[in-house]
């Protein structure tokens, strides 16, 4: 099915809502065309194209809610979806926390669509793979990579007259290059909104250089070190901290932002004053949808941490009503303010330290302190007197992003990183941090 435009989407939403006999009706509609190419051992392993369009109808009778979805769009199918949603709603128990649909909104669109990215075709994808594979072959290295791009649209509507339509595009690429003997491994990635600003060769070259430089890694004793974490090494660590900003969790006493004796730590200075984090759907480098699809509320530019102070918490509509606060839309991005220095400049100003390309298998050990464990991977180096001296063996770490953001020496220029296991687009700088806690060595290359 072709991607729908605003008028076609509106017509379908209106038709669905007209069919509903429930007290209220919410509709979301989304479609995408997603292409990908995957390669390993210097050969393409899979390539594919997935097209899908899906309609979700959610209706409520009082506080009983039901949901149904369908991916057929003739009149009979639309009616079937509405009746199914109504059937489920009648069977569901009342939810005391049910919140009625919100009223009409004026969404200020964000720039999430790029025509260059939408024009990506199979040849473009094959060329991305070829750039990495050919460069790796030339250097007698072995490349494995994944490129994916998506073009689509998102629509929300409800029976109070709310309607929003926005087109989206994205692209994401990463590759790992290893030496033939498996003693060296390098990784690099790139996310971009504009395919014209994406350079597969440059990304591939970084991974190749890291692979070549990482051979013959030496063991460094585990312990606390000054580290320079590249943005991709930090995003999954810091991204996991934001769950604790949920006001309900904090108020209920089960977040690192819960206060001893009750309440939360909004307004407290918990981080180094260099820490400034905000969400902004209109950010030019990391734009996201102008609304949060679950609540259908418009997103706002919101300070999350300002000069190290916790400056906002996330309030669901239910919790906001209960606590007498204003509800917030779920954030789609996190912008972490950086400095002006490049990664190379951060290295140049470091007497002794460890450069980390990437972190891996990060898991929460203790949500009380946001203690996370994980490992370094695909390019870990020892820095001495402002230069990369030699590769070092990978480490396991046990560290909390709250502690990390209190131990900042310097921040570099922020860069776009797409979330892997965290649900945000992030602008995040390379960070030079003190006393990062490496707890054991890993033999993995």
């Amino acid at each position, binding site marked *: 099915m072709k991607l729908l435009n605003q008028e076609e989407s509106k017509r379908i939403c209106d038709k669905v809502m007209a069919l509903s006999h429930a007290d209220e009706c919410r509709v979301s509609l989304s479609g995408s065309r997603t292409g990908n190419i995957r390669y*390993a*051992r*210097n*050969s*393409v*392993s*899979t*390539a*594919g*194209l997935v*097209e*899908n369009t*899906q309609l979700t109808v959610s209706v409520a009778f009082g506080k009983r809610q*039901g*949901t149904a*979805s369908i*991916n057929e769009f003739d009149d009979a199918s639309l009616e079937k979806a509405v009746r*199914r949603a109504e059937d*489920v709603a009648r*069977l*569901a*128990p009342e*939810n005391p926390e049910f919140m009625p649909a919100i009223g009409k909104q004026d969404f200020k669109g964000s720039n999430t669509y790029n025509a260059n990215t939408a024009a990506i075709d199979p040849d473009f994808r*094959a060329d991305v*793979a070829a750039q990495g594979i050919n460069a790796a072959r030339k250097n007698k290295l*072995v490349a*494995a*990579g*994944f490129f*994916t791009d998506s073009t689509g649209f998102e629509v929300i509507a409800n029976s109070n007259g709310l309607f929003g339509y926005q087109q989206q595009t994205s692209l994401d690429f*990463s590759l*790992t290059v290893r030496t033939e003997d498996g003693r060296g491994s390098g990784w690099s990635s790139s996310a971009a909104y504009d395919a014209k600003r994406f350079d597969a060769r440059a990304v591939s070259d970084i991974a190749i250089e890291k692979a070549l430089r990482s051979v013959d890694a030496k063991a460094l004793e585990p312990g606390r070190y000054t580290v320079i974490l590249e943005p991709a090494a930090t995003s999954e660590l810091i991204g996991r901290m934001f769950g604790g900003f949920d006001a309900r969790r904090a108020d*209920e*006493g*089960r977040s690192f932002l*819960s206060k*001893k*004796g*009750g309440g939360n730590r909004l307004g407290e200075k*918990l981080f180094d004053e260099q820490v400034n984090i905000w969400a902004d759907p209109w950010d030019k480098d990391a734009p996201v949808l102008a609304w949060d699809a679950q609540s259908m509320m418009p997103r706002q530019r919101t300070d999350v941490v300002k000069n190290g102070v916790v400056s906002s918490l996330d309030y669901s509509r239910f919790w906001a009503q209960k606590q007498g606060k204003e509800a917030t839309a779920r954030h789609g991005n996190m912008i972490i303010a950086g400095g002006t220095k490049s990664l190379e400049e951060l290295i140049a100003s470091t007497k002794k330290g460890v450069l980390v390309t990437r972190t891996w*298998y990060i*898991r*929460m*050990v*203790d*949500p009380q*302190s946001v*203690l996370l*464990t994980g490992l370094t*991977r*695909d390019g870990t180096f020892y820095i001495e007197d402002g230069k990369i001296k030699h590769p070092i063996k*990978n480490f*396991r770490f*046990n560290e*909390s992003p*709250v*502690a990390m953001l*209190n131990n900042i020496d310097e921040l570099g220029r922020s860069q776009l990183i797409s979330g892997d296991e965290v649900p945000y687009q992030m602008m995040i700088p390379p960070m030079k941090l003190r006393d990062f806690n490496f707890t054991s060595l*890993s033999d*993995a290359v």
Partner: protein
Amino acid sequence: MLIPVFGNAIAAEELLNPMAVAFKKSLADTALNAATKAGATYCDVRIGRYLNQFVTTRDLNVENIVNTESSGVGVRVIANGAYGFCSTNLMTPDAVADAARQAVAIARANAKLQDAPIQLAPVKGVGEVAWATPFTKDWRTVPIKDKAEMLIAANKAGLDAGASFMQSLLFQVNQQKYFASTDGSYIDQDIHRLWSPVTATAVDKASGKFRTRDGLSSPAGMGYEFFDVKPEHKVRAAGGVTQLYKGGYDLIEDARACGRQAREKLTAKSVEPGKYDLVLSPEHLFLTIHESIGHATELDRVLGYEANYAGTSFATLDKWESKKFKYGSEHVNIVADKTTPGSLGCVAYDDEGVASKRWDLIRNGILVNYQVTRDQAHIIGEKESQGCSFADSWSSVQFQRMPNVSLEAGKKQLTPDEMVKDVKKGIYILGRGSYSIDQQRYNFQFGGQLYYEIKNGKIGPMLEDVAYQSNTQEFWNACTAICDQRDWRMGGSFFDGKGQPPQVSAVSHGSSTSRFNGINVINTARKIG
């Protein structure tokens, strides 16, 4: 945990009518013919209908009930020696034939970057066959009201026992999978699984401390009879520290224990770091097996196909070829299978039409084999695939996924209580906690749900802040005893992630309670701001 949200919600009464086999065969033949005509030397077609129902509760409220359905067709071909794949949700002959032709075109494009042609190990066509997960109670026919009441009763039991907050969920899966290939197979399978995780949170507002305790259930490849718990399903933990389950699950009883033990954790003794002999219950050990043996013996990882994301493996071909690589102590016998009844991996055929089997991965501590698909079998000199191919949707391309990987029970009669009697300084660990392992499966760190001190052969008080860090080979060589078959039971992972784009699969791991000597335990307590 990954929760698939892709799919269409459906009314329960419509779940029970599968697509007619004749319709699926005709659609499959259309794709096979179109692919062959377009130049494919091989083609397989997977017609899938994936039904899920998720029920989510929080304290005494049902938060959500979601029925999803996803149907469509995936066509994989080999043309010019390379793979091509295309999928469509339009179940018409024209759309399926188009998908087949597009798959061939993609294969031809991929062939340009291919060094050597794909070699598939032979499979003899089985004609038209059918298989279904054995069950006595279909989750699709159990009223939503009964499920909601069970979950709310569990939450109430946890709250009454000391929890500040409770959450319980019910995941139910039915995969109706039809496979056809140019080898002459038409395989119709109906697969059922379910899982009910529960979590209690206890908060001490005065100290600002909170702790959680997750349920000790295992997901199962069976029907709703899983919840009709009988006395034979109950297993007493060593020292009677808690109730465990095998082949059935008393959600409400376990939720009550969750509430009580989450509260108990708030004042439990913080562990002294150091070397301990660990006694690991199957509810915990399954995940250590999964991460340090299951993933490490996937041949696609060993060869480098997952290098960019999931990683490679330390269990390299030279170690296997030497026939001497001591993965573990002589007690360690690891088998792979897709045949154990009630397991998450149990099917009759994989997603390449290969019949399920059972084989050794580690015998008397020595690495003896891997997990392979048809295109990998020749690399390790196997004449046929072991049936490890799986795709999580009609729209995903199938690739190598882990079968059940289990530790065989010890041959000598030994109960967990008898095992504990010999331990001077140890920790008894139960349940699945935090888990992390490096990309070649050497260095890992695991936590659990419940920890008990063992001193001079006796189980003592509850401990907290425990995690153990080890190296896979050292750890399995430190295995000194395994309880006998009476204690053997399965744990499992319902949403195991792998691949790019990521796919989830479900897999079980059986073991008996096992002992590992001299393992490094760290204390995970930290203070912030």
